[in-house]
């Protein structure tokens, strides 16, 4: 095949890929910035006549009849942030120590721990939902922030340990040996040598952990009702109820997706390294 045709075919393919990946999301954004009148006309106007922030305003500001929805939205936004950040911090702390132990210290049962950590990542949450619900109801943790944080740990912690273990294992052990000869303890070496060297790993783990708990739906859906309800649950409620305004859902959806999407796009190198760490070596 002549080179020129090949080049053209390549660019056609690239454009198709870009359209396929971005257009659904762009349509969500355009919808959220549109007036209802532009979207409900047939034939549909793809480019709205006016761009408006009205749909976003109506999520945040009371317009008389919608005070309940506004309060719910702001509260769930706050809940999502609190729960995602707290889960991330706890898992980071526990996960870094555990990952160091697995990656660097040979102790009785260390291989078993690796196995457990991997197996846990594949346990379907739906199996755990039923017994966890029974347990949490007895402990009066349903619809409590702390309750949801506890169950979210079961998703995020294995992920953190798994990723950090990979980063720790990639740091040459000679560095640590040298520190130990100079009188450093294992923990001293972890905090003075290994952690600073694995700061790219830490960044990616922080983002992974945040995204995983920010996006989490099933547990939040089952274990919260009102007080601890997160943004994904609210969006789910909005979009399964009939008659609710579509445009409000699109605006709420864009807002909910912005933190993970922006983090992932800004730190894409870290994310790609993290995603491939387990699979490609």
């Amino acid at each position: 095949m002549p080179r020129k045709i090949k080049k053209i075919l390549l660019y056609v393919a690239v454009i198709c890929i870009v359209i396929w990946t971005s257009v659904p999301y762009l349509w969500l954004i355009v919808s959220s910035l549109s007036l209802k009148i532009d979207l409900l006309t047939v034939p549909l106007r793809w480019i709205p006549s006016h761009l408006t922030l009205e749909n976003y305003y109506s999520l945040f500001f009371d317009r008389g009849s919608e005070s309940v929805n506004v309060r719910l939205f702001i509260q769930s936004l706050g809940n999502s942030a609190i729960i995602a950040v707290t889960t991330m911090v706890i898992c980071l702390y526990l996960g870094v120590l555990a990952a160091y132990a697995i990656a660097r210290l040979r102790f009785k049962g260390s291989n078993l721990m690796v196995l457990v950590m991997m197996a846990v990542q594949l346990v379907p949450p739906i199996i755990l939902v039923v017994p966890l619900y029974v347990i949490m109801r007895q402990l009066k943790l349903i619809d409590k922030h702390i309750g949801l944080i506890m169950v979210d740990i079961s998703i995020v912690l294995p992920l953190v340990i798994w990723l950090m273990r990979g980063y720790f294992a990639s740091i040459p052990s000679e560095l640590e040996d040298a520190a130990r000869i100079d009188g450093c303890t294992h923990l001293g070496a972890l905090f003075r040598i290994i952690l600073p060297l694995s700061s790219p790993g830490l960044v990616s783990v922080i983002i992974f952990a945040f995204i995983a708990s920010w996006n989490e739906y099933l547990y939040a859906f089952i274990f919260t009702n009102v007080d601890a309800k997160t943004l994904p649950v609210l969006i789910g409620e909005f979009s399964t109820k009939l008659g609710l305004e579509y445009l409000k859902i699109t605006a709420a959806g864009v807002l909910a997706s912005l933190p993970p999407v922006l983090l992932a796009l800004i730190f894409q190198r870290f994310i790609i390294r993290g995603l491939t760490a387990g699979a490609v070596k």
Partner: protein
Amino acid sequence: MRITKARYRAIFDDPRTLGVVLIAPAMLAILAIVLLPLLSSLWLSLQQRDLPRPQNDAFIWFKNYWDLLHDPRYLNSLNATFRFSLVSTILELVLGVAIALVLNQKFFGRGFVRGLMILPWAMPSIVNAAMWKWIYNADYGALNALLTQLHLIDNYRIWLAEPVTATVLVILANVWKETPFTIILVLAALQTIPDDLYEASRVDGATEWYSFLKITLPMILPVLMIAGMLQFIWGFQTFELIYVITGGGPFSTTELTTLRIYAMTFRSLRFGYGAAMAYLTSLVILIPAVAYIRSAYKRVVEI
């Protein structure tokens, strides 16, 4: 007795002690939130435990499982889940490899396009579901508008009310979100293939298709296996996508087991039966799960 520094080191800097001390908090957390509920669920699955009828609570051995094998609605959901996961996985692998091969070429704006692939991956799955539901909307959805303006259909159709199109469309929504994972893995694997291999086969006069079959495919096969197993397992865990887009309809054609388990436990409040359903369903993904763990475990322990 005073604990001196040397004494402290002798005890706590010994890898055998320190390792256990460091891993204990994480392990305890996982024991309490995952392993304990896992066992308790197994125990629950052997009981009749219906919240509305506590007088009938009893230990009934495997009766729940036996009943499940004769529960047409459950078998239907198992079938739907299997179909959903298998078709999604195959599409994600084929599309993932095709897109990764394109993105591995040299073109203007390559870094940007590669970065864009992360977008669907990062989106909350509930937003993905709401987004596609809006696109598929019968009255105002972009899908109807697009197909009409392209003159592919004459009238707006209620896509989600027809079994076949509903199934296809929820799979499409799933594939859109999940393919980037495969793309990223395959792209990374492609970059590890040395150029000289292709050089050599070109010298030998091989066609591009031949080099793809003989060089590229074998080199990315391990990664494809891993991606495929994970995607299949994740397909079985899909919940909110279906819950929001079709709610399991029409006529239960898209009702996945997760929706059945949810309805059985939290609507009908039959906890024992729900637990048995979750366990029985998980047996299907046990084989890919064990295969995945084996291959991943080998890699870790060898290092």
